[in-house]
């Protein structure tokens, strides 16, 4: 081995590499030579030695090689250093621990700042490879200095080195748009490289960093223009390269369609393209189709539809349908093209055409029904389930215009059990539709299909759907009509687009396998390796909202239905084709259990509460914990005169702001793809706000937050957009106070204080509902004039009155009064009757409803009795009864049990967080007029009360 003959040395090394593994003991003998060769004066021999060393995959040997490797990493000759850098990666593959212990990783990191570009490239390559097997290790933490080094090396290293460096650059997150631009400027020349892998890696860097550039920038436009030619050039390469390029272009076109919008023609299919290239080109053609080029595209597609390859022809026919859905102006032409194709009578063309025509009907209902006759002619030739199902759907949907619809459907029914599930389900629905449209002549048919579906079928889906229809039809045909024949949501071309968050992630993976599969690496990279999620950098430019069309306009006109909700209906419609009826407008109720107790605040709930009065303390008592913090100074001497009372009230009243409930979890992370929202409502100095705590429990960064409220009883609406300044990285929590106003549109909710909220972020839109405490709606000028109070008290009709008792509130009148004042419930008068303190209070809601209250405090009895009167014309007393309870004696933390015990001890039961009131007969007289009011049986007014609010 210690020969001077280079040729011989090479051969011996080659032998060693291949046979060391089988004879490890012998291989050890070679160590000395390596050590010696690593000190050879000839750098090429040093490099050869270090290169061969790494290829000997024998554990015992590796540790002896550390010393020579360390020397070579610091060698004066760049060729040796660059070879040694790769050797670290080889060694890491064999024994990762050893490499870390020996500190080779740090040496490798130092090599990134090497003066020789080849060394830099190889160091980057080695680090990337090591980093891939240890995603947690922060090997490639780049800073502006090292980025600069990389960019310098980029110009001078080999093409393969350029790929490594560009891929490494793509994982860097520039700190601002200027840095992003300067990197882009230095990467752009790579677009003219002959090696397509270099070009695509450069495209990746540019696509990613472009995200940070403002669209107003001139440079942004220049960059867009520069990106098109290299992408097109990739298409003239070998078919394999074309395929990978096309898969990536597919992503790029979805992200930034403007880049290639004028290059439609390069995607025209050549007849000798391999099929995998043809199909990809077709897909991109549709994505690029627009009003401007639709004529060309259609002409091409029609041409393709007569080709030989069946798969391709099918896809071309589908593409025509997609064009119709995408470009509205072209729909008519597309339909006529499809009709032409149907005339050819080529079986698979006809079937595909019918499937896409069904979609066109769903997009443009009542527009192209004239073609139905032609479709019906081809009924017999359909043998594929999808086409049959589509045809049946059309017949059912337009049964009233097809004279012999019943015959047609009956013909399908004959072989019902031989059909695929898809067809069976569709047939069932279609016949039910037909029945609802022409009930007289099709009764027998519908009976037949229902019995086929429910009695003779093994398929649970089919049976269930059959039963649903059966019951629907037998119980309420009108409702059935409303459900089955409801208007369907229109479909849009969005369906075949990649979901935006996934798309953004994939853009970061341009040029990799992920981009070929259009799946994030986590979906297919093998198990043990952790996967680092990548995301596009946030834009730092100013024109944010203008350029992200999908961002729901924050603080949109209040009262507008959350625009996103119909998507649910759409989904349902698609899933089942059940025609379930108009989309559910209310978001699912996901309120935390704590708040559920308030549900029976109104309406029926209150009626029953009032009914309970007869039994004295009814079944709905909300015991409260002892408010031990306040001295129970119950027998406080209080003057008898009203004047005194007024004086007193002015003295108390701490203005520290109203009661704030602790934050409750409104939206658990499980239901919102990792976003957890908890919050509460506050009222401070006249302004209402919603204090939110957003926690990102997902693995990816969240951004683009927006919020919308559904219409609600008091017109609550966000006064400002939801502002989350930085993207929310995993495990980060951000606290936001969202100012609210009450100028939104009003709709009565049940319960009255229910608030339905939609929160959007870059991942999805989430819905939850919560109950807000009414006291946030008590305005500061709710103190009524004394005379006015008297007059109003008299005027309020009986049905606007409610009474209940608050238990376990060992406060004296003064303390109660001051606490209530903090929540804008003002004490107008106070007097002492038979040893009881009577407090007369007023409050005003944001919608100018006045509420008057009488509060009786008995010394020694921890229970308070409350009488509530809501001022006409709007009667609100009932709903307020409970909200009042929210606002005081808030010193204890609530527990959330749901048991109901009639105890006056310190047991807590709170069905409501701070519910301490109970309806009770009150015999106390009106403060100024003596006894006047008596308990009345509950009246329907209680439900009217809520309605009045909504009015």
């Amino acid at each position, binding site marked *: 081995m210690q020969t001077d003959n280079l040729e011989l040395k090479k051969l011996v090394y080659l032998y060693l590499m291949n046979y060391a593994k089988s004879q490890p003991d012998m291989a050890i003998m070679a160590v000395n030579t390596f050590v010696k060769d690593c000190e050879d004066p000839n750098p*090429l021999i040093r490099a050869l030695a270090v290169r061969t060393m790494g290829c000997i995959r024998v554990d015992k040997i590796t540790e002896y090689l550390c010393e020579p490797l360390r020397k070579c990493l610091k060698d004066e000759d760049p060729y040796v250093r660059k070879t040694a850098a790769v050797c670290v990666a080889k060694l890491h593959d064999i024994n990762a621990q050893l490499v870390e212990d020996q500190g080779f990783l740090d040496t490798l990191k130092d090599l990134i700042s090497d003066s020789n570009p080849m060394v830099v490239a190889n160091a980057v390559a080695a680090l990337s490879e090591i980093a891939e097997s240890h995603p947690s290790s922060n090997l490639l933490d780049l800073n502006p200095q090292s980025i600069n080094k990389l960019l310098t090396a980029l110009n001078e290293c080999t093409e393969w080195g350029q790929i490594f460096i560009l891929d490494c650059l793509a994982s860097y997150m520039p700190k601002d748009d200027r840095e992003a631009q300067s990197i882009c400027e230095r990467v752009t020349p790579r677009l003219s490289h002959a090696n397509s892998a270099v070009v695509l890696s450069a495209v990746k860097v540019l696509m990613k960093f472009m995200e940070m550039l403002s669209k107003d920038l001139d440079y942004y436009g220049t960059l867009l223009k520069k990106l098109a030619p290299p992408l097109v050039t990739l298409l003239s390469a070998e078919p394999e390269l074309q395929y990978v390029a096309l898969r990536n272009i597919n992503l790029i076109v979805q992200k930034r369609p403007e880049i290639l919008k004028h290059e439609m023609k390069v995607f025209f299919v050549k007849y000798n393209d391999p099929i*995998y290239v043809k199909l990809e080109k077709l897909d991109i053609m549709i994505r690029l189709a627009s009003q401007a080029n639709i004529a060309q595209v259609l002409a091409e597609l029609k041409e393709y539809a*007569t080709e030989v390859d069946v798969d391709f022809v099918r896809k071309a026919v589908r593409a025509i349908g997609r064009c119709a859905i995408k470009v509205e102006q072209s729909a008519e032409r597309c339909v006529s093209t499809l009709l032409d194709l149907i005339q050819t009578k080529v079986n698979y063309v006809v079937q595909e055409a019918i499937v896409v025509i069904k979609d066109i009907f769903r997009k443009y209902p009542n527009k192209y029904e004239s073609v139905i006759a032609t479709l019906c002619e081809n009924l017999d030739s359909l043998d594929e389930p999808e086409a049959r199902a589509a045809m049946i759907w059309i017949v059912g949907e337009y049964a009233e215009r097809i004279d012999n619809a019943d015959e047609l459907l009956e013909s399908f029914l004959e072989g019902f059990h031989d059909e695929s599930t898809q067809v069976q389900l569709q047939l069932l629905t279609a016949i039910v539709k037909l029945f609802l449209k022409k009930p007289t002549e099709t009764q027998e048919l519908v009976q037949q299909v229902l019995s086929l579906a429910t009695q003779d079928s093994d398929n649970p889906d089919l049976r269930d759907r059959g039963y649903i229809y059966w019951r629907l039809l037998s119980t309420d045909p009108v409702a059935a009509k409303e459900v089955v024949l409801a208007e369907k949501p229109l479909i849009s071309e969005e369906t075949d687009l990649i979901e935006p968050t996934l798309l953004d992630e994939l853009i970061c993976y341009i040029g990799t396998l992920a981009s070929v599969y259009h799946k994030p690496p986590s979906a297919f990279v093998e198990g043990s390796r952790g996967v680092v999620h990548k995301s596009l950098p946030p834009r730092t430019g100013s024109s944010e909202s203008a350029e992200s069309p999908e961002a729901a306009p924050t603080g949109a006109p209040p009262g507008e239905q959350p625009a996103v909700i119909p998507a649910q209906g759409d989904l349902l419609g698609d899933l089942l084709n059940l025609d379930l009826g108009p989309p559910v407008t209310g978001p699912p109720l996901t309120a935390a259990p704590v708040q559920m107790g308030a549900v029976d605040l109104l309406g029926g709930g209150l009626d029953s509460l009032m009914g309970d009065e007869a039994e004295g303390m009814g079944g709905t008592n909300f015991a409260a914990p002892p408010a031990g913090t306040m001295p129970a100074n119950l027998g406080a001497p209080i003057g008898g005169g009203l004047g005194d009372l007024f004086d007193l009230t002015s003295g108390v009243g701490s203005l520290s702001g109203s009661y704030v409930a602790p934050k409750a979890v409104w939206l658990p992370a499980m239901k919102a793809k990792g976003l957890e929202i908890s919050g509460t409502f506050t009222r401070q100095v006249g302004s209402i706000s919603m204090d939110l705590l957003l926690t990102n429990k997902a693995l990816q960064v969240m951004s683009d937050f927006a919020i919308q409220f559904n219409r609600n009883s008091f017109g609550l609406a966000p006064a400002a957009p939801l502002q989350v300044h930085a993207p929310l990285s995993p495990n980060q929590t951000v606290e936001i106070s969202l100012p609210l106003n009450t100028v939104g549109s009003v709709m009565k909710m049940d319960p009255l204080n229910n608030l339905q909220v939609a929160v959007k972020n870059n991942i999805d839109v989430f819905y939850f509902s919560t109950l807000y405490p009414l006291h946030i709606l008590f305005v500061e000028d709710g103190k009524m004039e004394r005379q006015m109070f008297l007059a109003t008290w008299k005027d309020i009709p009986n049905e606007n009155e409610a009474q209940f008792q608050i238990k376990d509130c060992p406060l004296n009148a003064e303390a109660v009064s001051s606490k209530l004042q903090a929540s804008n419930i003002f004490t107008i008068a106070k007097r002492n009757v038979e040893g009881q303190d009577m407090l007369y209070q007023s409050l005003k809601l944001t919608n100018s409803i006045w509420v008057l209250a009488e509060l009786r405090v008995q010394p020694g009895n921890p229970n308070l009795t409350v009488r509530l009167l809501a001022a006409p014309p709007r009667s609100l007393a009932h709903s307020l009864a409970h909200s009042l309870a929210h606002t005081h004696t808030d010193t204890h933390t609530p527990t959330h049990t749901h048991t109901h015990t009639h105890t006056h001890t310190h047991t807590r039961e709170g069905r409501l967080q701070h519910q301490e009131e109970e309806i009770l007969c009150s015999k106390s007289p009106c403060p100024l007029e003596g006894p006047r009011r008596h308990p009345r049986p509950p009246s329907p007014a209680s439900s009217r009360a809520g309605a009045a609010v909504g009015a």
Partner: protein
Amino acid sequence: MIHSLFLINCSGDIFLEKHWKSVVSQSVCDYFFEAQEKAADVENVPPVISTPHHYLISIYRDKLFFVSVIQTEVPPLFVIEFLHRVADTFQDYFGECSEAAIKDNVVIVYELLEEMLDNGFPLATESNILKELIKPPTILRSVVNSITGSSNVGDTLPTGQLSNIPWRRAGVKYTNNEAYFDVIEEIDAIIDKSGSTVFAEIQGVIDACIKLSGMPDLSLSFMNPRLLDDVSFHPCIRFKRWESERVLSFIPPDGNFRLISYRVSSQNLVAIPVYVKHNISFKENSSCGRFDITIGPKQNMGKTIEGITVTVHMPKVVLNMNLTATQGSYTFDPVTKVLTWDVGKITPQKLPSLKGLVNLQSGAPKPEENPSLNIQFKIQQLAISGLKVNRLDMYGEKYKPFKGVKYITKAGKFQVRT
């Protein structure tokens, strides 16, 4: 990075394998064969196949599959580019990239693969450097080798790898210093039934053959460099000079290489040099059809169009064709249904035509699809885009080289729909 490479021939034999890391069993190729079976046609095998533990990235070149195995997330283009580079190198070394040539030179093949990739990282892919490391086989050398027992492994280590211009070896010496450039343009076009152009573009390349001593620094300028707005360069070209002055300035590699490739796509610049009159029709309910095509010159800039070949993939129901050609000869392969008409030159006085009858399978329905005509031709001494080299200057060396530029225009994917 690239783990292993398998070379597979058309009949599905793995005739060569090379592993750069640990050995991956041949059985991994079963997934490839599966995909191949599904694809029916060899050209339609998808280039990226995923298997439970590996990814197979393959290219199809010269009736051979180059299948590489990778285990981690690697840019597929990187792998595909590398595989093409391997095939190019074989071509360069053995004159052809065929199973026989590879089998004959199996030792050199292994030596090359070893030098090209180190642990999956590309090491030396420049033909100049490789040839310094491993000498290409020549008849003389193989005779000498068999007598003296020496091998092709060079006894020098590649000096080029140390320099800042890795593509050129040091100490080049020629007695005749020459620099030749071939400007080759291919027209890709789709012409529709009526003869109007659906799509046309020019793919151009400038291939160079440089045999100059020492370290010459060349600059090549064009009469109309504006034509070139979409270009890919050989790494030797100084991009900044091009950006600022539109001049190609470079220290060339030694020997043959592709200097730039470019694309001219604006339609008005793409002249279509030939037209085809065609009339192919099949009669309903009869087992024959008519076939009639005529070719004529269109915008040929006064040059002769030669080497014309027309290839037509006839529909499956066609049994046979009875044609007469006014010029050249035709063949019809009844198995593959491919009609080839070798026309030769066009003389404007008498336009070549091919007409006659098509026999169809009796009883078969009239074919739906109309065959596309695929046309090949060549025009010497013309770059159809109008690109012209202005001058070539050499700096850095004292001698005066011979210089030459040749232009040629060819049909690329030139397709006429009928």
